[in-house]
C-alpha cells in the first residue's frame, strides 16, 4: 500500500494512470460493442462469415447444377444440328426441302404419286413447324428404301401421319404409302447461330 501511495504521489504518474485507465476502459467498451471487429475480428464474426460462405457455396452449387443441365441440353441440341432446317445454312425451305424428298425417292427408285406444298405453323418466335404431304404407290422394297433414304436425309423428317397398306387386299402388288411429313425450321438468330456455329 505504501509503495502504491509512493507511485501515485507524483502528479504526472496520476495523470498517466488516469489516461491508461480511460483508454483501457474505452477499448473494452468498444470491443464489447463490436466497433473493433474490423481491427480484431472475433469468433462470432468469423463464424458468421463461414456461415455466409456455406450459404454462398450452396447457391453456387445450385447454379452450377443448373448450368450443367443447360449445357447438357445445349450439347444435345448442338449434336442434332443437322436435324433442323436453318435457312441461313440450308437455304429456302419451300424449294430446297422438295429437292431433298425427291432426291430420296430417286435414290430409292420410288415414284412419288404426289408431293404437297409446304405449309408452316408457328411454334414460337423464330421456330416454325413445316408440313408437307406425300404419297406413293410402289413395291415394298422401294418403299422401304425410300423410308430409309428419308431417314438419312437432312433435315430430320417426322411422320405426323403415316399409312401403309396394300393396293389390293385380295391380290396385292404394290404398297400405298401416304402421310404427312414434318420438320422444324429454326429462324431465331441466336439458335440459328448456335446451330451453325457449334457450341457457344
Amino acid at each position, binding site marked *: 500500500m505504501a*509503495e502504491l501511495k509512493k507511485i501515485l504521489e507524483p502528479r504526472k504518474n496520476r495523470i498517466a494512470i488516469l489516461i491508461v485507465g480511460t483508454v483501457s476502459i474505452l477499448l473494452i467498451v468498444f470491443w464489447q460493442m463490436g466497433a473493433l471487429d474490423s481491427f*480484431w*475480428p472475433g469468433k462470432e*464474426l*468469423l463464424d458468421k*462469415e*463461414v456461415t455466409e*460462405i456455406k450459404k*454462398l*457455396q450452396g*447457391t*453456387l452449387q445450385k*447454379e*452450377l447444377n*443448373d*448450368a450443367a443441365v*443447360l449445357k447438357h*441440353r*445445349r450439347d444435345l*441440341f448442338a449434336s*442434332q444440328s443437322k436435324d*433442323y432446317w436453318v435457312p441461313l445454312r440450308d437455304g429456302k425451305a419451300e424449294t430446297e426441302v422438295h429437292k431433298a424428298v425427291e432426291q430420296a425417292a430417286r435414290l430409292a427408285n420410288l415414284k412419288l404419286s404426289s408431293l404437297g406444298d409446304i405449309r408452316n405453323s408457328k*411454334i*414460337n418466335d*423464330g*421456330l416454325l*413447324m413445316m408440313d408437307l404431304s406425300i404419297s406413293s404407290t410402289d413395291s*415394298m*422394297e422401294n*418403299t*422401304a*428404301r425410300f*423410308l*430409309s433414304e428419308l*431417314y438419312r436425309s437432312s433435315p*430430320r*423428317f*417426322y*411422320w*405426323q*401421319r*403415316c*399409312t*401403309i*397398306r*396394300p393396293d389390293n*387386299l385380295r391380290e*396385292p402388288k404394290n*404398297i400405298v404409302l401416304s*402421310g*404427312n411429313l*414434318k*420438320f*422444324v425450321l*429454326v429462324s*431465331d438468330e*441466336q*439458335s440459328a447461330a*448456335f446451330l451453325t456455329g457449334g457450341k*457457344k
Partner: protein
Amino acid sequence: MLLFSSAEAVALTWDRHGKVCGLRLQKRGGIMSIGNAACCNPAEGEPLSVSLAKVWEKLSPEPESSLLLGGYLPSAVCIEFLMPKLPQAELSNAIAYELPRRLPTPLENLEWHYRITGEICKNGVSFWSCRVFAVQARDWMHMISEIDAAKLQPDMIVSPFMAAQLDGESVSLPGIEDFFEMVHSARGDTLPQMVSSPQAPSAPSITASQEEKYAKLPGWQLLENSLPSDERAKAFVFFHPALLLAEYGLRDCFRRDLKMAIPLPEKFRPLRSKGLKVACLFLSVSALILFMSYTGRAWWDARSRFAALRAEKKNISRQIKKIVEENTKNKQLDLTIKNIYGANPGNPEILQCLHYLSQNIPDGMWVIDFNSTNEKIEMTIKTSGEASDTEFSALAQTPFFSTENIRKRRNSDGSTDIFIRLLYANSKEGEPAAAPPLPPASTGGPKNG
C-alpha cells in the same frame, strides 16, 4: 524503485560529540541530487546507536540503496603510499607487510583495508597509489556493536577521508578529525597525506570550489532544512563527510572497493534479493513478451482468417454472378430448345418401327393396314386361323411399345382380323422420343400379304 543499480547511496556520519548527519544522494542520468537529509543531535547520555537509528528512519531510503557509515573513530588513520602493480591478493600481502613500518600499532591489533586511488608513473615505472584506512580493533568492535544496536546493515564502514577525491585540494573534517587533514598538492605530483591541521578545531577550512560543487546539487536546501535554524549556516560543514561518503557510494569504484573492505559480520549483509528481483523481472518480461507474441499471433491469425474468408466470399460471389449471367444468357436458347423438344412434330422412326414389327409378329400373320399418327400406331393384322393373345406377347414385352388395345374380329371365311393399337412408350418430355435400335440394313418392312 531502484532495482539493479545503486543509483542511490545513503551515508550516515557522526562526529566526536555523537551528532549524526545523514543524507540520500541519488544519481539519475548522470546527475546527482540530494533526495533527503536528516540530522540528529543526541540527548544527554544517548548512545550513538539511537541517533543512527533516528536519522536512518528519517531518511526512509530505498531498500536497494547502498549504505555507507563513517565518522569519528578515535584511533582511525588514513595513509596513502605507492605500491608496485601487483595482483589483488599479492597487493594485500604487500600492504600488510608495509603497514607495520608506517604505523606504531602491531598489525594484529588493527582492522584495516585499502583502496587503489590511482596510478602514478615514477621514473618510468607505474605504481598503484594505495590509500589505507586502519583502526584499532577495539574501536572497530565498539562501532560494530553500536551499528548492530541501531539495526543497520551497512555496505561499508569507512573514514570519509578514504572516500575523498582530492584532485589537488585538501580536505578537513572538523568534528571527525580535528587535528589532521588530508592534504594534496595543487599540482597533484605528490601523494595525499594526512597531516596535522594548522587550524583550530572549531574553524574548519572549506574551499570555495568544494562548496560551489556541492551547492549546485539539486536538493541542497534539504540539508539546511534538516538542521536547526542556528546551525543552518554550517550545513556544509556538518554534511560534508556524508556527501563525501555518499558520492563515493555512487562511484563505479565503490563496488570494486567493497571486495577489499574490512569484512563486516554476516548479519550486516543487506538483504536486497537482487537475484530474485532479476529473476522476477526476467520472468515478467518473458511473460510479457510471450503474452504480446500470443496476442500478436492471435490478432494476425484472426485478421488473416477474416481476410481469407472475405476473399473467398468475394470469389464465390463473383463466380455466382458470372454463372448466373451465363445461365441467364443461355436461358433464351434453352427456352427455344425446350420449345423444339416440346413441339412433338411426330414419329421420326417409322422405318425402325416397321423393322421391329416384322421381326416380332408371329408367322402366318400379315399386316394389312399400318397407320401411325404421332405417338400412336394402329395396325390391322390378318391371320387364317385362331390367334391367341400370347402370340402378341413379344410386342407387349418390348420397352419401345406398350399395347394399348387388342381387338379381334372373326371373319366368315374363317380368318381373323386383329386390331392392335400400340403406343410409343419411351417418349420423354423435353427431349425427342427415342427409337428402337436401328437395324443393320434398313430394307425390311412389315409382313404384308
